[in-house]
């Protein structure tokens, strides 16, 4: 009986060890073969190719500070998130989810440059419009490979504006004089204590028009649209998604899922793709526990 027991346990042990070793060797073989392509090999074996979703919500601006509680903000946050998602070699496309009325030129152009760099590396960008993606937000969207908007999304507003409040009349009424000592005649141009002179208005108009030309060029190049046509649409008017589609400012009508499908299609992802969203820092997550802000950022990987 003892011999039988030993034989039985030996055979069982050898069988299990053998199967484990074979699985180990098979695993090595799969890894060496690099069955990492979507739709190939065993479903759980490979890392899924991914589409990243980055939110461009609210005004786009270069923040003047980094908050201890919320981390980076404004365009810096978007740049950080882009950098984070593009570190992952499995990310093949990025969906920029817009709900923004626009923003400052500098902030928009900083993000624009990063999009161009990523596109040069083969990453596809898709813009998805929520309620609104106008002005600076459209500037960014125009650089994307594909634009998806809801029929009722508001977009367009291609143009540049600059404005200064003037307290001159109030100061006159109250009899307050403001003494300004300046090194040059234009140094206090835009000061709220006096109105702009016609010459200064001319200078600022040139400045605005230069930025406007850059905007028009960006839309023309991004949308592959003749400059003349862009100029017709770039008078500051806003459009619904449906009209923008007819005018060629938008490629497709649909929602975020349509945009994700487009991202998969453009980047050549077959089968399932993972969706990643930038994760908040541990500190932010800690703060969110107390502030109920979990809507801010997920760090989930969902299936498309």
């Amino acid at each position, binding site marked *: 009986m003892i011999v039988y027991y*030993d034989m039985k346990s030996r055979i069982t*042990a050898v069988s299990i060890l053998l*199967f*484990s070793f074979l*699985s*180990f060797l098979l695993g090595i073989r799969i890894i060496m073969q690099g069955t990492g392509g979507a739709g190939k090999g065993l479903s*759980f074996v490979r890392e899924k190719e991914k589409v990243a979703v980055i939110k461009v919500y609210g005004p786009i601006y270069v923040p003047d500070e980094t908050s201890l509680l919320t981390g980076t903000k404004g365009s810096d946050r978007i740049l950080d998130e882009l950098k984070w998602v593009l570190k992952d070699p499995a990310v093949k496309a990025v969906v920029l989810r817009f709900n923004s009325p626009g923003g400052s030129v500098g902030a928009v152009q900083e993000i624009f440059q990063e999009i161009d760099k990523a596109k040069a590396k083969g990453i596809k960008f898709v813009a998805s419009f929520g309620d609104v993606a106008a002005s600076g937000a459209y500037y960014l969207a125009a650089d994307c490979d594909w634009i998806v908007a809801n029929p009722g999304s508001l977009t367009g507003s291609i143009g540049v504006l600059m404005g200064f409040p003037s307290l001159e009349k109030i100061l006159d009424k109250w009899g307050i004089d403001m003494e300004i000592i300046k090194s040059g005649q234009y140094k206090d141009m835009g000061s709220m204590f006096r109105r702009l002179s016609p010459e200064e208005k001319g200078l600022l108009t040139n400045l605005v028009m230069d930025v406007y030309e850059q905007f028009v060029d960006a839309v023309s190049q991004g949308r592959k649209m003749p400059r003349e046509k862009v100029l017709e649409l770039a008078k500051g008017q806003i459009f619904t998604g449906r009209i923008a589609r007819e005018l060629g400012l938008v490629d497709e009508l649909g929602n975020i899922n349509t945009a994700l499908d487009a991202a998969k299609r453009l980047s050549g992802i077959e089968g399932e793709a993972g969706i990643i969203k930038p994760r908040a820092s541990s500190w932010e997550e*800690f703060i969110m526990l107390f502030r109920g802000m979990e809507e801010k950022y997920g760090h989930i990987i969902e299936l498309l």
Partner: protein
Amino acid sequence: MDTLSNFYNLIVLPRSGLEWTKRHENWMLLFFLFVWAQAAKLVSGMLLGTSVFKSPLFLNYGFPALIGLALVGWVVSVSILHFFATLLGGHGGIMKFFYLWGWSFFPFIFFPLFAFWVFEIADPFRFIMVVFFFFWLLFFRMEIIAVNYKIGIGRAFMVLASPFLLLLTLSLFVGIVFFLKVVLGL
């Protein structure tokens, strides 16, 4: 009973398997299994798409770095657990524990089997399988502590849990103090 038969016991009757292992030290075999277990962990991790193989340590120094790291982890774990086991009334030699703790990596040689065959056949039960593997590993480690320090399984669990409980308590304390001082400014 021989080494091969003892593998059977280690799988189905860990207590008696570990008792036999304790009496028949074989460092060569242990080292071989240790390296195999680390390789199996790596392969399973890669198959399952974990980030182990993306870590700078692995990318720069490869598999030997993971072995080195596991060895350091082995020494550190043994030191910490020996401290808590003694504190909780256990009696056992640290060198013998060092040897036995090396066998705590033993279940990992079956990890590719779980990761590959079991998951492929029963993918919907993946969660259950992972939980099963986790509890097997936990139970195996509790048995090692129980065998070496001649204590009950409940106390062995406390030995394993104590470092985590201590860390959790300290973290909570530091977190609360930090929150009150820095965030609320009290």
